[in-house]
């Protein structure tokens, strides 16, 4: 028994500094991704959540070029994209404007990487993340920014929920819908920029969508849905760190896989539950 334990939790897992950085930053981004993912689901905006981390990758490429921190490059770029999407979608069809902005960002990323002569490993780290390579400065930045984002979500929770479910009613109560739209997109952008260095531009989307969708199927109320989503996200990244350290399988792959498994499981539970549930006509009086 002790042997298996020792095999799974190998020496250094909780003591090496690079692993401590990994635990802390992965937990921070798991929480914020799951919480913001709930609103992504609620507003049916998964395309935005898909486009922002990918496009933000150009920001990191630009940061390489000028020698700035990649977190800064990611955030600036992602927020610029978010503001573009938030304003453009008022006129046009929202899928088209999101796609156009994504293409523009990817093209710029190509340009920056070529001009900056970035080496393959750097590009690779951006695309697939580098959980075990998070520096202590990055860890601190990720943690503080996640906490700030969480506070902002807490502050706009009710108006965001109201404007996402009954927008006309929200407007009638004086909630500015355009401001809420932009706030939401900027929140997704900032959460994406924190996630990209860790899970990578290509797989950041899975952490934002998978756990939130699992929580969606498991819960009946918004609070519960978020709590489940956070639990799923945290367990996914934690298990991924342990397995990644044991087997040196890529962490991005593991996180994406566990998020998908959780999503599939939640769907399955949901549908087997609803098959057993009584028909609406036999609803008990409560």
């Amino acid at each position, binding site marked *: 028994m002790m042997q298996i334990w020792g095999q799974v939790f190998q020496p250094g897992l909780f003591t090496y500094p690079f692993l401590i950085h990994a635990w802390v930053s992965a937990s921070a981004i798991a929480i914020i991704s799951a919480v913001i993912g709930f609103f992504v689901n609620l507003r049916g905006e998964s395309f935005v959540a898909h486009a922002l981390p990918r496009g933000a990758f150009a920001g990191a490429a630009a940061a390489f070029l000028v020698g700035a921190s990649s977190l800064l490059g990611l955030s600036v770029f992602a927020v610029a994209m978010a503001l573009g999407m938030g304003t453009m979608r008022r006129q046009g069809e929202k899928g088209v404007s999101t796609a156009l902005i994504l293409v523009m960002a990817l093209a710029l990323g190509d340009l920056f990487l070529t001009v900056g002569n970035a080496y393959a490993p750097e590009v690779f780290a951006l695309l697939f993340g580098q959980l075990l390579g998070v520096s202590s400065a990055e860890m601190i930045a990720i943690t503080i920014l996640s906490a700030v984002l969480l506070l902002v979500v*807490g502050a706009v929770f009710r*108006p965001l*929920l109201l404007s996402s479910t009954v927008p006309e009613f929200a407007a009638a109560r004086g909630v500015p819908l355009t401001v809420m739209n932009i706030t939401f997109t900027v929140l997704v952008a900032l959460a994406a920029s924190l996630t990209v260095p860790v899970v990578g531009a290509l797989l950041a989307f899975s952490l934002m969508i998978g756990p939130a969708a699992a929580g*969606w199927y498991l819960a009946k109320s918004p609070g519960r849905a978020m709590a489940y989503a956070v639990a799923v996200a945290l367990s996914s990244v934690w298990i991924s760190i342990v397995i990644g350290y044991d087997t040196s399988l890529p962490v991005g792959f593991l996180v994406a896989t566990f998020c998908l498994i959780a999503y599939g499981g939640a769907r399955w539970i949901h549908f087997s539950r609803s098959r057993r549930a009584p028909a609406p006509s036999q609803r008990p009086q409560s």
Partner: protein
Amino acid sequence: MSVEPAIAMDQVDVVLSGHTILRALDFSIARGAFVGVIGPNGAGKTTLIRLILGLIHPSSGTIRVLGMPVGKGRRRIGYVPQSFAADPDLPLRAKDLVGLGLDGERWGFALPSRSRQQRIQEMLDRVGASAYANEPVGTLSGGERQRLLIAQALLTNPDILLLDEPLSNLDIRSGREIIELVDEIARERQVTVLFVAHDMNPLLAVMNEVLYLAQGRAVVGSVDDVVQPEVLSRLYGQPVDVLRVHGRILVIASDSVVPFTHFEGVAHGQPSSPSPHL
């Protein structure tokens, strides 16, 4: 108690993207009135509601709502939108949705409290929705959703209730139930009601005033005064006939080749209720 009218319009024009949508609105609505807002598609009914809510502004003229300029005292105006979209998996229970009517526009999140829960529960009981209080809203029928929206709008104890085509997704029976519910609540709470509908017949028993909109203009008054051929012909700007049959009112264009093109409610053996199709 103040004697200010619930809504007072003084020569109000509304221009949206260069088009005059509403012109020379000049009327006032007394506290406690049940007003049917009637008019064909595109007459400006929704625009009128948005105007009262302060979501659009008049290009000229003044509006006072409860004696205040529009946009003030939003919690004293309850608004019931037509319906809402929700997929069956949406993790939002009926009582969560209704609870958002209490304080959904405020910062932060609502701490669960006994008094909060009790207020929500009482309102659910009042609109007859307590049987599905814990059900996900996406699984509910159009009539059930409408009750929730009414409960949501009433949680702040508003003085005015604005309903924009609440009957549009409902069958005749649910429609009648919703009208009765709104009428009862309006009486017991002395709420002024503006009830938008494209057909006035279902409302004849409950409304004491009609606000008839056509071509961006409005006339307000009792049904007997307003729904007259001369008045409506002037409003529509073309000859209009008014037929009263079996206690129902049909408004039709005199020069229309096929006068009755838009019949509704022939199902269930109900007398039909054509809407104005001008």
